[in-house]
């Protein structure tokens, strides 16, 4: 199954600095259709499409919009999460670089649907060079009157360098000008989000789906994919591959297609899907279909060849989380530190046999008790490699 470009259909085709070039390629057809419908009907269409969040959690997008639309109050917000901090992930960067207009259109559709008069795109500091491009797209959409028709004003908020701000409640805190620390939930953003007002927060790629669904219909969309994973997924792939880059595949496509055929990886040992917090798939499972039901994450794929040391990779993953934990809840704040310490012992060949059990106990505790996805998912790659590459750990025991 080769690439299917639905979300990326304009990338490399349009001039990303010119709205006319976008309009020539069916730009704003989705928004125009949406504006002829009632907000409730737009939400119904998104629900019917089966679209789920592309940031990793896979929450049904229509349901999120519905809850926000129905929430009490006139002041509502749409937030676009462009804080793509997951290691090895760069699909949102590619999207904004090549087709910022579709994103602006997606934000406008979401805002119209839920009744938000203000939307923010939270752009990570590491993508500060995209600010001009994104603002240009917003301003051109305003000049043509599209944003006014949708009744929304879109502003870019620049982050300041913090992986945790990709977590929705931390992102909200950050836009409010605070430390990016995770909130206790409930209440969830659809009832109490930005400035405690009803808020939709969606990943860049999720919002990119909205114009396509509105233009072509939910039935067209839901024909693509498998089970409860509809549509396509955009992947970024890097590491030990010949052709790193961004590829779009229909949900359910085997991992082999992406890794071996498109990215042309050879001599593969393992693949990590979903960045540092993602699952590790050994080569023997290379035919695993990519979907919410199996492995997906935000779509960042790192490939490791046979020359790579699994424990070295895991040590780097653990160092990443130790640095990026926000520090609010102690299972994550302490756990990430101890995981790094113990994995480092294995890396240096100084571990005792009991340390294997310690890693497993601590991982389980963090996964069960951490306040947010960071601490819950930090041990994923460790747990997976303990399962598939246990002998590598055992060989480092003193």
């Amino acid at each position, binding site marked *: 199954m080769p690439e299917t470009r639905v979300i990326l259909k304009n990338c490399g085709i349009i001039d990303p600095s010119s709205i006319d070039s976008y309009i020539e390629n069916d730009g704003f057809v989705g928004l125009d259709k949406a504006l002829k419908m009632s907000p409730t009907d737009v939400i119904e269409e998104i629900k019917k499409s089966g679209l789920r969040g592309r940031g990793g959690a896979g929450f049904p997008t229509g349901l999120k919009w519905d809850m926000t639309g129905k929430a009490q109050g006139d002041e509502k917000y749409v937030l676009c999460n462009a804080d793509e901090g997951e290691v090895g992930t760069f699909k949102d960067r590619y999207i904004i670089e090549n087709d910022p207009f579709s994103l602006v259109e997606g934000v406008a559709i979401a805002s119209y649907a839920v009744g938000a008069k203000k939307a923010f795109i939270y752009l990570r500091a590491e993508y500060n060079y995209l600010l001009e491009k994104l603002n240009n797209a917003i301003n051109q959409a305003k000049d043509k009157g599209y944003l006014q028709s949708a009744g929304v004003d879109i502003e870019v908020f620049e982050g300041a360098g913090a992986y945790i701000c990709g977590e929705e409640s931390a992102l909200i805190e950050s836009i409010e000008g605070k430390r990016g620390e995770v909130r206790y939930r409930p209440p969830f953003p659809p009832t109490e989000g930005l400035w405690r007002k009803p808020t939709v927060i969606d990943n860049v790629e999720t919002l990119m789906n909205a114009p396509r669904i509105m233009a072509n219909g939910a039935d067209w969309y839901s024909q693509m994919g498998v089970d409860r994973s509809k549509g396509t997924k955009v992947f970024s792939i*890097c590491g030990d591959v010949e052709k790193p880059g961004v590829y779009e595949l229909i949900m359910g496509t085997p991992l082999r297609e992406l890794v071996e055929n498109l990215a042309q990886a050879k001599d593969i040992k393992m693949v990590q899907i979903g960045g540092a917090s993602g699952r590790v798939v050994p080569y023997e499972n290379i035919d695993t279909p990519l979907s919410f039901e199996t492995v997906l994450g935000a779509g960042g794929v790192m490939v490791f060849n046979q020359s790579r040391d699994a424990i070295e990779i895991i040590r780097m993953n653990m160092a990443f989380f130790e640095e990026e934990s926000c520090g609010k809840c102690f299972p994550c704040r302490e756990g990430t530190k101890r995981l790094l310490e113990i994995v480092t012992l294995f890396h240096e060949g100084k571990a005792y046999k009991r340390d294997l059990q310690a890693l497993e106990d601590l991982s389980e505790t963090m996964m069960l008790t951490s306040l947010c996805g960071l601490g819950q998912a930090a041990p994923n790659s460790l747990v997976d490699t303990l399962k598939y590459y246990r002998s590598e750990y055992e060989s480092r025991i003193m």
Partner: protein
Amino acid sequence: MDTVIQEVLTHNKNGNLISILKEIQDNRIDLSKDVMLEVAKSLGVSFSEVYEIATFYSFISTEPLGKNIIRICKSIPCYLKSSDVVVATIEKELGIKPGEITPDKKFSLHLTNCIGACDMAPAMMINKKRYGNLTPEKVVEILREYR
């Protein structure tokens, strides 16, 4: 210095500390204790409220920064493409280690987590520009442009 801070505060009327501190820093004013105290006083918040923002985010620094801020990726995708060799080249060229600033204050060097340029690993940023597919030769060339 005071006028720049006041100007920044004027066009950030909502008092968002992240935007304010970043903008002050973009004007190459180091976030010293005195600067943070002035921001706190002007906004009517406590010093700790300013300090906690300044120390939470990796793109805001309470240490002096160079005129040119080099952030080189230390995450796995760049590491797989020998980012360590590039780091060593920069260290040798500038005579500083990560976290340090050159005596003429022209450069500061920082190791950073994934900057989302993994398709062009190893990669780095200098100020607001991205550089990819780095080699020791290429990085020497790039640094020359900023000298």
